[in-house]
């Protein structure tokens, strides 16, 4: 596989797919500013599910401190991008 560094937009797009799959709702669109409470049914249980799905998909592990402090989707995108470098 050629070396390819994902952009923030590509990561965001992958996150949108994950949340759509997780909640089985193709109408969901995430933005960098989206907060959990903006998405119906994205409760704390599905938040952990989302984190796990991202970790598996991207092959990364978030620190417990980060998981507790992410303020919006953009923060998760940024942290993911950081771990991928």
């Amino acid at each position, binding site marked *: 596989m050629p070396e390819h560094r994902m952009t923030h937009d590509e990561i965001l797009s992958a996150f949108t797919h994950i949340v759509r*799959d*997780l909640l089985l709702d193709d109408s969901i669109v995430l933005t960098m500013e989206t907060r959990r409470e903006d998405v119906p049914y994205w409760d704390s249980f599905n938040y952990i599910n989302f984190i796990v799905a991202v970790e*598996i998909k991207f092959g990364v592990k978030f620190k417990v401190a980060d*998981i507790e402090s992410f303020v919006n989707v953009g923060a998760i995108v940024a942290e993911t991008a950081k771990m991928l470098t």
Partner: protein
Amino acid sequence: MRNEAQVTNMLVSLNPSLNDPVVATRSATPRCPTMSWLPIAPDFRGDLRAALDAPRPTDCLENLASLASFRLGFLETIQIDRALSRLGLKEAPGFLPIRLAILASSTIDHLLPAIRVAGLRRRLLIDVHSGAYGQYRQDLLDPTSSLHQFAPQTTLFSITAREALAAVPLTATAAEVDGTIARLIGELRSLWRKARENANAAIIQQTFINVTESLFGSYDRLVAGAPARVVARLNDELCEAAAQDGVLLLDIARASERDGLDAWFDAGRWFQGKLEIAPQAAPLYGDMVVRTLAAHRGLSKKCLVLDLDNTLWGGVVGDDGLEGIILGEGSAVGEAHLALQCHAKQLKERGVILAVCSKNEAGIAEAVFREHPEMVLRRSDIAAFVANWDDKVENLKIIATRLNIGIDSLVFVDDNPVERARVRQSLPMVAVPELPDDAAQYVRCLAEAGYFEAVAFTSEDRQRAEQYAANAEREALLASAQSMDDFLRGLEMSVVFGPFTAVDHARIVQLINKTNQFNTTTRRYTSEGIADLINLPSALTLQFRLLDRIGDNGLVSTMILRPTSEDEGVLELENWVMSCRVFGRQLEFEAMNIAVEAARRRGAKAFIADYIATPKNHVISTLYQSLGFAAVNGSATRWFLDLEGYMALNTQIARAGATIHAGAQDDA
């Protein structure tokens, strides 16, 4: 350390439906158990959405069950479960509904989707009840709890070792540790009893994953109070207690050793939400739970059907010749194929039937079994040997018919992906493991699939292979006989019979719960339920062994009769099963003769019996009619027999009841 290419491959294999670019990373990566025996879905995301487009909910359910048979990761499992819950079906034709309660001391919400989805894979519609974690004692003891109202058929104890570890100080002596463990296991046993009293539920107990960290290093093993040592001891004692109490085990401790602890336990998840089992292990956990549920209901596979070329040996015998195939010592490939043979041989020793289904000249294929010096499997190990150039789908049907087992009892092992795809397509009820390209991984793939999950290992299992071989001899006898009567007379059959006894307890439970064809009501009984019957004077229980001049067929039939509540002179034949091994030998007639005699001795005047039709027991749809029962109100399901007017049926089976005292329960 994995290199980047490996990490990328792992991700792709886990998440085949996601085509977005994936970049390898140098940070820590999550470890995931994979269910490598299941094929990868070509387009999961599209297939799932298409599955939900079917017009009727039951069609959607069928589609979801098909999708569940693919290799699913954590996220795919959640999606299927969400789709399933939207259907809102409590029952559906062709699916067995099961109520499962889970009593847990950690968070298990993330495991429930995987249990339901694994249920779909085996055509079980599982309704899961879980209380608040850590509340299981109260739920069991409080008769008004939602657990009691749920009335589970099976109760799973999913508890961690943390409580036990807190009770053992590091400085405890060996005797103190023993005492604490004995007390904790004793408490657990009383909870098992409680769960049984409440609902007569079967109990599954999960083993303790050893998530402890080392304190002394290797020396942990020598310190009685060291946490790692305590958990190991707990598991030993737990298994001992489970064996004594007839509790089924769910050995996730072993699975976590196999996959690596990191695949099953993630300290971060524990701190975040008290998840003892890591979410990425959920799909496998669910499959393991459902294997146990299925095994308990007699739904484990029974027969391993093996391809030959490039499966049992390397190369193609038709092209390469007997000398040219690769098998045995001296070649890594040859040893890998030999390892599969050894595994199959061991499965045979534990009671799995072996068959061969190969595209080959029969004579050439059989010659390998007879003449190749490296063969571990011999021709006599194979109960049904089919080698020809016909479609394997038809040959698998022939194998099932010849062995007199359901086609859904077959596991088909073939290295050829085209054959596998064809069989999956035409016979979705046959299990077809996705054999890896590397022959060295064949055994692991087959073993990890858990097709032959067992809940007992009885003397019947040990003898099954010989009994199938003896049956082949009987078939030869039948072929040479002038008539059926002639054949039956020539067999010199005799029956040994008596009430249920403690000695035969395990086999009786197994026979009743595994028998699907000759099973009048398909009512299932727990180990305790049968134990209770042994000690219940009002019940009339009978077990039958059939012997003939070729051998002992073993304990092959049981009957359970109880007085009806309206009239104790009328006995209800609430369950009657017979092993398919002895169909067509007139045993059902002689068994009825014996039951009538035993019932008359206790003063009964009539039998009442149900025939409850299932997809599998059509073979006995006219049984009661042939035995002289009368249909109650013209129904085909409820039957009546007047014992006074009963004329003993003529059979070729002699009575040899000396070893077990004949007759009713109260004679014993």
